[in-house]
């Protein structure tokens, strides 16, 4: 008897002004899943993008079918955490993949996430830029230094058992993500960190897969002092409360 597949994988794609990238990431996802024979659905949670993202999403729904592309938009920008909660309500898969919709995360790693999950029966599989042949494209020395420095700080202070705490390309078992969303309260980078930290607190297991992160946006949006300050504040909050 042939081995059962992983069941359905639900991909949560929160979008804001991703009119150009959305069709590309959906195309890559669809191709990856059909090439590896994995049942899937893509849940697009658009926060009222003014650039026409929703029109593009509707065209994609027509092309790929409304059983594969689920449009679940919201009226305005309400944040990533609530986007996940909102999207999860409609997810019918056993596994949920969260990723960025701007092509910095490549869908080709999802079958590797699934393979890793099976290998160790992990509750979470996290893509890491810092181990193995994981890496980044499009970052200058300063950006890389900040990244490595911040990561070092989180490792020393939180000892999280995962090498890439601020990464947002992950696979969760559905029940695990539901449980975590109840407990996590932070925003932005810190939210991703808190998920892993709380997961470890609750006894969940985390596996890792090296991924490549292709940053095509960095040139336009440098990492500002504000973001660094809020990262540090969030890190210290997690340090003191978990």
């Amino acid at each position: 008897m042939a081995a059962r597949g992983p069941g359905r994988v639900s991909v949560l794609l929160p979008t804001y002004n991703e009119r150009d990238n959305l069709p590309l990431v959906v195309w890559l996802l669809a191709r990856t899943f059909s090439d590896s024979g994995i049942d899937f659905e893509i849940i697009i949670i658009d926060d009222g993008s003014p650039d026409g993202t929703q029109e593009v999403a509707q065209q994609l729904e027509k092309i790929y079918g409304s059983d594969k592309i689920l449009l679940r938009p919201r009226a305005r920008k309400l944040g990533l955490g609530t986007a996940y909660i909102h999207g999860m309500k409609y997810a019918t898969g056993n596994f949920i993949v969260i990723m960025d919709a701007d092509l910095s995360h490549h869908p080709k790693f999802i079958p590797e996430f699934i393979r890793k999950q099976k290998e160790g029966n992990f509750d979470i599989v996290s893509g890491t830029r810092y181990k193995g042949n994981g890496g980044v494209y499009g970052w200058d020395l300063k950006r890389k230094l900040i990244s490595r420095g911040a990561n070092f700080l989180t490792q020393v202070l939180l000892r999280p058992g995962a090498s890439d705490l601020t990464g947002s390309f992950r696979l969760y078992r559905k029940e695990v993500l539901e449980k975590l969303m109840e407990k996590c309260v932070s925003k932005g980078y810190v939210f991703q960190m808190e998920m892993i930290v709380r997961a470890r607190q609750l006894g969940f297991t985390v596996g890792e897969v090296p991924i490549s992160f292709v940053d095509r946006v960095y040139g336009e949006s440098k990492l500002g002092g504000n973001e660094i300050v809020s990262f540090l504040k969030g890190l210290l909050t997690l340090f003191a409360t978990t």
Partner: protein
Amino acid sequence: PVPLMGLALPVSPFPVFPSLSFSLPLSPQAAMTKLAQWLCGLALLGSAWAALALAPPGLQPPAPLRQALLPLPVYLLVAFGCYSLATVGYRLATFNDCEEAAAELQEQIRAAKADLRRRGLRL
């Protein structure tokens, strides 16, 4: 019998912190925050250092030991600083650049646009 069982459970010689769990931070009952763990650890090491290094003349350890002990906290701090710099420096130097991934993505974007146009996507 009941009090004995209560003492036997946590593997800790410090009854004041029965939930001390340096080795089991994953346990759901662990409860100690990282900050609390750090403060505990620092308090332990600090009091041990103070007891030995600042002891009254009658209880002082031998002179060479005391000479090494006194500046130890500063030495450790500096050593940790060096370790941090070296580690971050090494990790920075070995941070992989994904040239191939970027090139592959460009290719795929071209293919995706063409295919989507064929399938009826109008931008």
